């Protein structure tokens, strides 16, 4: 372990030294790191003066920590270019091969470069924070609370690790610096949204929520590092010269994996689908836990945000239910289409979100109906009614089909997203993802969509009858 890190550190040292030798990289980082905090100091000072005129010191109070976070973030985004060219830059300069010929393992090379890409942005961030704090102290005598300072430094560190690890993954999987720079948008744009979210938290002064943001980003950073380690290999680095979009090959690969060895649809159901179900047993278990967590979360939310009891009488529920049914054309085949398409759309959105979040957002999206079920059931119980009656009348009839479909859909989305973090020996990242896409398609076509269709049929034609009978008593 120590020896592994020691050799990785040899690479890190060389790369950092090399970076600091290039004045074209270092000059902008240093200037921006020193000038930007000074500008923020000036902004903070002006803001304080301005709001003091209107006796609104709260705005300045919130702005200063927010600017502290921005001062930490800014140098990371500037020096992201170092991480983006860590592998592909060397490949373009054709200096990577001797390193690949050395006896170091793939993970040592990857870790060495990852650390090297992290040091300049982190150093610049910490330097920026120091300049900003010193400036503020000298100008207005402001010092942060120790816990806030710890939070901002931790947040900055995690953001740097997250962005750099994402950029290094991009760098190790592309074949030109130009492509890497373009793909960096997939790191910078989500991070910009994240910073906006964090800004809201900071102006809202709910600093405790920042710990959750730190935890979430640390998890994603961990997953990105794992992805990078899993898919970095010498073969890919030297064997692939061009990124060619071969849709025909990709389509063929998905269709082959989807069909498997089956000779007919029946054969496919009998032999191929059970294999996929077995392969997905871990994601299925995780999704099942997720759905249970969803119900539990909904239940606990009911205690925090209760619905007034008078709105939850069964007679009112029944009335609203019947009106709602008429509006969406229940008791008709068109209604089946509406329900089925709604579920299909939800799964497609969850798939899209899951693809860009290692499956996590996909799972969270599909947990939402369970949160709602838990929330309403708990509220009904709090109102003194039977939650079991509610479940039996409005959820159970079609839920028998719909909940397993949600479970399977969540599992296949989770598997699709998580593919990026698991090593697929002898396969490229793209090929491994296409195989997972085929598994997702197998589950969708073979089980999820038929189950959703059955659920829609029951929901349109049977659930209303059951609901009217049970709730009407």
């Amino acid at each position: 372990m120590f020896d592994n890190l020691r050799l990785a550190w040899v690479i890190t040292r060389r790369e950092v030294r090399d970076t600091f030798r290039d004045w074209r990289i270092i000059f902008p980082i240093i200037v921006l790191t020193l000038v930007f905090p000074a500008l923020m100091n000036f902004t903070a000072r002006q803001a304080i003066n301005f709001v003091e005129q209107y006796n609104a010191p709260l705005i300045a109070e919130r702005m200063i920590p927010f600017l502290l976070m921005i001062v930490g973030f800014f140098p990371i985004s500037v020096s992201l270019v170092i991480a983006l060219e860590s592998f592909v830059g060397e490949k373009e300069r054709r200096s990577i091969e001797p390193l690949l010929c050395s006896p170091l393992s793939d993970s040592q090379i990857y870790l060495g470069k990852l650390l090297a890409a992290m040091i300049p942005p982190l150093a610049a961030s910490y330097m920026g924070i120091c300049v900003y704090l010193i400036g503020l102290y000298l100008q207005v005598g402001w010092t942060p609370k120790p816990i806030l300072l710890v939070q901002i430094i931790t947040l900055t560190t995690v953001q740097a690790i997250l962005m750099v690890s994402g950029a290094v993954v991009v760098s190790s999987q592309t074949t030109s610096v130009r492509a890497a720079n373009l793909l960096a948008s997939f790191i910078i744009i989500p991070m910009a949204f994240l910073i906006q979210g964090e800004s809201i938290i900071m102006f809202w002064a709910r600093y405790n929520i920042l710990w959750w943001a730190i935890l979430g980003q640390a998890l994603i950073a961990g997953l990105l590092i794992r992805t990078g380690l899993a898919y970095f290999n010498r073969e890919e680095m030297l064997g692939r010269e061009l990124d060619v979009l071969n849709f025909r090959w990709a389509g063929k690969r998905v269709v082959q994996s989807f069909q498997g060895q089956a000779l007919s649809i029946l054969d496919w159901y009998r032999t191929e689908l059970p294999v996929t179900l077995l392969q997905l047993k871990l994601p299925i278990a995780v999704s099942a836990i997720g759905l249970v967590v969803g119900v539990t979360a909904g239940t606990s939310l009911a205690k925090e945000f209760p619905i007034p009891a008078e709105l939850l009488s069964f007679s009112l529920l029944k009335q609203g239910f019947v009106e709602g049914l008429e509006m969406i054309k229940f008791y008709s085949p068109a209604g089946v289409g509406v329900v089925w398409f709604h579920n299909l759309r939800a799964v497609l959105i969850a798939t899209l979100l899951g693809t860009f979040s290692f499956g996590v957002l996909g799972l969270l999206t599909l947990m939402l109906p369970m949160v709602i079920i838990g929330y309403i059931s708990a509220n009904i119980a709090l109102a003194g009614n039977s939650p079991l009656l509610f479940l039996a009348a409005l959820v159970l009839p079609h839920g028998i089909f719909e909940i397993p479909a949600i479970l399977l859909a969540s599992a296949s989305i989770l598997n699709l997203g998580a593919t990026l973090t698991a090593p697929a020996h002898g396969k490229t990242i793209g090929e491994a993802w296409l195989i997972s896409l085929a598994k997702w398609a197998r589950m969708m076509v073979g089980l999820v969509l038929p189950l959703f269709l059955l659920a829609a049929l029951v929901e349109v034609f049977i659930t209303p009858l059951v609901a009217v009978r049970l709730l009407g008593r």
Partner: protein
Amino acid sequence: MICTEDLSKKFDEFQAVDAVSLDIPDGRVLALLGPNGAGKTTTVRMLSSILIPSRGRAWVAGFDTVIQAAQVRACVGVLTENHGLYNRMPAGEYLNFFGQLYGLDAQQRQAQANKLLEHFGLAPNVRQPIGEFSKGMRQKLALARALLHNPPVLLLDEPTSAMDPESARLVRDAIRTLRSEERTIVICTHNLAEAEELADQIAIIRQGRIIANGSPQELKMRMLGAAEYEIRLAVHLNGARPSLPEGVRLTASGSDWLRFQTGNPLNSNPLVLKYLVEQGLPIVSLQEVPRSLEQVYLQAISAAEMEQGARVR
């Protein structure tokens, strides 16, 4: 020391190397000849455990290139097709960095780097950034990097390309010295004269396949036929055709010289001399007619093209 069996590499639909089987004993130099894109570099990359073969196996210094990749890389010195140098780094620091990667301690690194820089005439440039080096100096530094850990196996891709004649001579002398130290060396080159000068064994590769393999003498025999000898006489023949022993074929003659071909010079040549002396034809000299590797190479390539054409038809 290096052994390959059916070694093949396919990139998607492109067969870069196809069924290469080689056996290179300790202390031998193999020259891998072939046109651009023939599969030389891919073969070297498989031997240095950077690329995994699609089919077949290879052993280098007794280690399997797939299963024992780290051991293979530790005992191989590779001079890559592109120098792969870090331009902003001084030469001494560059060698020190690679010495660390190959597990040499500080003292060994220092000693080896000094020795190699001295040997290649780069000692005065030890603190100079590599970006300021000429092409030849870079090539020499890259070769020094390949030799830094004193590897028993050397894989050299175009070792003298871009070098001036003096530097190229220096590198060739270095390779000769290394061979005498019982190292196994594979040289990929376009320079046929260099291959002939340095190699004990020649393998000609075309479209990923080895189309000829053997010692220079064996290849000449196989591709160009039996060796040809020329005798210079002290007298004029005046159009006479001297009789020669059985198994010896007269191929050409002039006023005071004649050429003959024999598959067994060891037995035939003394007999030829005896015959001629007996016929009153005093001899000035007997020597083998030189045949270049270029003739062998072109013959092998053209034979392979003809074979391929016949297969297509």
